[in-house]
C-alpha cells in the first residue's frame, strides 16, 4: 500500500518534470535561436561532457568547500556572539547596528571590497560568511531571548553551574532556532558564494566557469553549469532538512 502511494507520488513528480522539459523545448522552438535558449539535448551533452571530466569534480569540491567554510565561520561567530548578545543587552545594542548595516548593503559592494582585501579563492568564503552571519546571529539572539525565564530561575534555585545552564538549558532551547538559521543561511550562502566566484575567478570554481561560458557565448554550457548549481543546492537543502528532522526527533 505504502509502496503504491510512494510510486504514485514519483509518477506525479516525473510527469511534472516532463511537462517542464516540454515547455523548455517549446520555448526553444519558438525563440529559435540557440544562443538565447539552447536545446535540451545540447545542454545535456554539455552536462555529460562536464561530468566525465575529473576537473569538474575538483571544481565542485572547491566551490562546496568555500560555501561550507563560509558557513562554518558564520556558525562559529554567529553562535558565540549571538549567545553573548542574547544574554547581554548592552552588547546587543552595540552589535545590532553593525548587523543591520551588513543586511542593508548590496552583496556586490561587499564582493568588490573583498576583491581588494583578499586572494581570489578567499573572496567567496568571506562573502558567504558575511551573508550567513547575520542570519545565524539573529536566530540565536531571538532563541536566547525567547527562553523561559522560569526555567532559568529553577536552575538558579537548584544552584546549577553557569556552564551547565548554558549546555543543558540554553543550547537545547536555541537548537530549533539555530537549525532554521542554518537552513536559511545555506540557501543564501550558496548563491552569494557562486556570485562572488563569478567576479573573483578562483582557479577552481563554478562561478569562474559560469563566467567563461558567458565570455565564449557558450549558452548550453552556461545552462549546464546553472543546472549543476541548482542540483547542488537541492542536495544541500534536503541533506540539512533531514538533519533537522533527526535532531528534532532527539529533542
Amino acid at each position, binding site marked *: 500500500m505504502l509502496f503504491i502511494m510512494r510510486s504514485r507520488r514519483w509518477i506525479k513528480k516525473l510527469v511534472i518534470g516532463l511537462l517542464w522539459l516540454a515547455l523548455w523545448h517549446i520555448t526553444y522552438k519558438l525563440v529559435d535561436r540557440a544562443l538565447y535558449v539552447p536545446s535540451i539535448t545540447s545542454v545535456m551533452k554539455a552536462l555529460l561532457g562536464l561530468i566525465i571530466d575529473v576537473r569538474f569534480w575538483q571544481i565542485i569540491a572547491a566551490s562546496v568547500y568555500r560555501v561550507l567554510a563560509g558557513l562554518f565561520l558564520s556558525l562559529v561567530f554567529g553562535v558565540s556572539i549571538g549567545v553573548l548578545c542574547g544574554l547581554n543587552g548592552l552588547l546587543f545594542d552595540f552589535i545590532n547596528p553593525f548587523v543591520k548595516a551588513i543586511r542593508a548593503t548590496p552583496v556586490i559592494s561587499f564582493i568588490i571590497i573583498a576583491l581588494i582585501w583578499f586572494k581570489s579563492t578567499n573572496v567567496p568564503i568571506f562573502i558567504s560568511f558575511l551573508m550567513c552571519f547575520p542570519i545565524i546571529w539573529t536566530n540565536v539572539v531571538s532563541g536566547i531571548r525567547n527562553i523561559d525565564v522560569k*526555567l532559568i*530561575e529553577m536552575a538558579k534555585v*537548584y544552584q546549577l553551574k553557569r556552564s551547565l545552564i548554558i549546555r543543558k538549558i540554553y543550547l537545547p532551547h536555541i537548537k530549533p532556532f539555530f537549525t532554521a538559521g542554518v537552513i536559511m543561511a545555506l540557501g543564501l550562502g550558496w548563491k552569494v558564494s557562486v556570485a562572488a566566484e563569478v567576479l573573483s575567478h578562483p582557479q577552481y570554481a563554478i562561478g569562474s566557469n559560469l563566467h567563461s561560458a558567458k565570455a565564449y557565448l557558450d549558452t548550453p554550457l552556461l545552462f549546464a553549469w546553472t543546472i549543476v548549481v541548482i542540483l547542488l543546492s537541492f542536495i544541500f537543502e534536503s541533506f540539512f532538512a533531514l538533519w533537522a528532522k533527526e535532531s528534532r526527533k532527539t529533542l
Partner: protein
Amino acid sequence: MNLSIKNIHKSYGELKVLEDFNLELDKSRIHCFFGPSGCGKTTLMHVMAGILKPDSGQIIMSSDVRFSYIFQEERLLPWMTVKENVALVLQEKAPAYVERKVLESLSLVELSDFSQYYPSALSGGMRQRVSIARAFAYEGDVLAMDEPFKGLHLKLKQNLMDAIYKYWVLHKPFTYFITHDIDDALYIADDIYILDGPPMKIIEKINIEVPHELRKTNPELLMDYKMRLSGIR
C-alpha cells in the same frame, strides 16, 4: 537556624504585594501559608528563596543554604526525560549516587515506570510529581513547596505527606508550604499562617498541637481546627 523576614517591601508597579512584612519562622516546626488566591504567597516564597529581589528589607538566614523548591508550576525541561530532569539537580554527585537517588525519589512519587518519558507525554499531575521528586532527590536544607499536592489523588497525596513528614523527622530541613486545602494543612503543618492581601497581612497564626502520629488515626482531634479554618472567609 531560624528564618527572619524583616521589613520586606515588594511591589509590582503600583501593586504593593508585600508592605513592611515581618515574619519569624522556627526551624523545628512545619509551616503552612494559607490564604486567598492573589494575596502574595508565591511572591513571598520567591523573595524568601532569593528568586525575587525585594524592593527593601532583609531575609536573615544562615548563608549558603540549599533550597529544594517545588514551584507552583512544574518547571521541567521539555527536552529531558523524567529521569534526566531529576538527575539534573544532582550534577556534582557521583553517578552511582545519582542513579540511586533518582530511582528512589521517582518511586516515592510512583513514577518509576515513566522514567524514560518526556514531560509532554505526562499528565499535569504526573509532571507535578516529577517536580516533587526533583526536590526530594536534591535534599536541600530548605524544603519550600508552593501548592505541592494540587491535582493529586487523595491516597497518593497522603503517602507523599507521610513521606515528607518522615523525611522531615530524619533530615530536619526548614520546611514550609502553601496550600488551599484545609485537610492538607491540618495533616502535616505545625503552624498555619492565615493570610490576606495584597498587601499581605497575617490575620492569624494557628498552632496545631495534635502530634503527627495521631492525625491519621484520630482525625477527630483536628475537628476544632478545621471548624476555625473553615470559618475564615
